């Protein structure tokens, strides 16, 4: 009878090649990192696309930034499909392997994260032609807060979340198999996956610093950047801290998130200038390539404060045995601090924004931010604890 054992030897009563738990671990690790490469490529392609739209214009559907974004989506889709089909085939030959994954529709077996990433990649792929249709109707200057932009950016953020699940399940297998090196690699992958989730959602949140995020509600003007940023930071950073062992987890996630901004700055202006020359195009409004990545210079910097604060507060809470409620109250101020708009081009943007919305508006915006920090932090803890339990056999 087929039986999955710890270690590399698994025997089967079939003539087919028996697969060990180690093979499943290796598969999840390799394909998990492939998905990670696809979603990070999508992030880079999207920042390049923002640059292309702003400086040159959306001149055709298959411009190089779009190809890069579509390439990222396709890579993620193919990797998740491969992960599920391969694990399904292995589980059919050796049913004992199925208990280390999740069964779907009574037919497929695979990592829970692979299903999330697969459906999210499909959603992002569907958003692309819909976005092309939207542009065909309303023109090239559609804001980033447009239905199908949101559909593919959030879709790819969910792909990264699925990837975090997949790599975490690989980490659980590595821990079970006693493979310390692979455990460290899987944990590093989970950190990069969380940073990618943060980075992708940041592309949507950035716009809230400006006009789109400022709401004139009769007698009061408010800005929604603090509430959106607090929801995002609270959810991703608190979840990461509850998912991974060790110290300074949130700080490591934000360090990778800031590294993305550096990579964008190195890649985007150079790639834009090079392709403009090849495509014989010119800038729309300015005469020169500004030499900066628009996404990088608008990349929020305050999350580093939130990350360090979250790590310190949760570390303290663990040592002193604080209750969940007290821990959440402890992280609220630091999440809110990280949700202040601070960018390299305008470090005092918080004050500028406060000037625009006025005293009353600033107070209401901060209160909204506090509620965002509460909901984000609460869901973050729940998500982190739930992720810890997935496929932990």
């Amino acid at each position, binding site marked *: 009878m087929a039986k999955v054992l710890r270690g590399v030897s698994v025997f089967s009563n079939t003539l087919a090649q028996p697969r060990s738990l180690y093979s499943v671990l290796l598969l999840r690790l390799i394909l998990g990192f492939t998905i990670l490469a696809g979603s990070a490529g999508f992030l880079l392609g999207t920042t390049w696309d923002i640059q292309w739209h702003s400086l*040159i*214009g*959306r*001149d*055709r*559907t298959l411009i190089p930034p779009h190809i890069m974004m579509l390439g990222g989506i396709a890579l993620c889709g193919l990797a998740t499909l491969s992960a599920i089909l391969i694990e399904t085939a292995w589980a059919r030959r050796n049913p004992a392997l199925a208990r280390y994954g999740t069964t*779907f*529709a*009574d*037919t497929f077996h695979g990592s829970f994260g692979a299903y*999330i990433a*697969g*459906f*999210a990649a*499909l*959603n992002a*792929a*569907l*958003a692309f*032609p*819909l976005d*092309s*249709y*939207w*542009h*065909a*109707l*309303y*023109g*090239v*200057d559609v804001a980033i807060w*447009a*239905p*199908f*932009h*949101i*559909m593919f950016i*959030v*879709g790819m*953020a*969910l792909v990264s979340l699925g990837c975090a699940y997949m790599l975490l399940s690989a980490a659980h297998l590595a821990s079970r198999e006693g493979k310390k090196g692979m455990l460290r690699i899987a944990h590093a992958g989970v950190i990069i996956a969380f940073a990618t989730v943060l980075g992708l959602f940041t592309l949507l949140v950035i716009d809230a610093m400006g006009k789109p995020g400022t709401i004139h509600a009769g007698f009061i003007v408010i800005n929604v950047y603090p509430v959106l940023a607090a929801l995002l930071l609270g959810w991703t950073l608190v979840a990461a801290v509850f998912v991974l062992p060790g110290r300074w987890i949130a700080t490591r996630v934000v360090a990778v998130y800031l590294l993305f901004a550096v990579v964008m700055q190195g890649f985007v202006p150079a790639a834009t200038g090079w392709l403009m020359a090849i*495509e*014989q*195009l010119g800038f*729309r409004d300015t005469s020169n390539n500004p030499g900066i990545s628009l996404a990088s210079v608008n990349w929020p910097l305050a999350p580093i404060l939130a990350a360090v604060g979250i790590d310190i507060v949760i570390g303290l809470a663990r040592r002193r045995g604080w209750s969940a409620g007290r821990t959440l109250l402890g992280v609220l101020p630091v999440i809110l601090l990280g949700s202040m708009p601070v960018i390299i081009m305008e470090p005092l943007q918080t004050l500028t924004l406060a000037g625009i919305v006025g005293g009353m508006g600033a107070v209401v915006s901060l209160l909204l931010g506090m509620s965002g920090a509460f909901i984000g932090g609460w*869901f973050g803890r*729940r*998500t982190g*604890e*739930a992720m810890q*339990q997935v496929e932990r056999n």
Partner: protein
Amino acid sequence: MSTFFQRLLLAFGVLVLIALLIEIGLSVAATTHGNQPARIVHVTAGSYPLTVSLYKDPANAGFALPFAIASDASQHGALSYDVYSLPGTGVSATPVHASLSPDPDIHGGIQGNAEITVQGPWTLQITVHGRAGSAVVAVPITATAPPAIPDWLGWLIGLLPFYGLLIFLVTQHGKQNKLQVA
């Protein structure tokens, strides 16, 4: 999640995949030149008489417009071309450089694809370089798009992954509660 719902999700996924493959097929088909042009325009750029064949009329916004240009090469010698699609007044779009290649069926002729990104009036701007110098001519084009869906429907579809995320978070919350009770 119940098996029924999982199968429903699977069926939905397969349908979306089929729709995507059809869309990719349509995009590729849009760049191929048909047997018969939908519209033939005779224009003169400077001293060069040109025959411009458009293989879609009106053009489909968001897709490539295949075209071909022919001239009496024996009269003017070898000609070279540069083609742009230019958005008309009130069209929120930027000029796009068209891709060109020699037309295998017509000596000295070229064929290409002009990208028409947004619905509305456009022109195909053709620059010809030859022995008699350079000259420019514009061929008007109209681009149409499928009927617009209402804004609210666009947002309803666009926020699909958010619903997924919310359902996911709520489900995780429910699981956590069960685990804590256990």
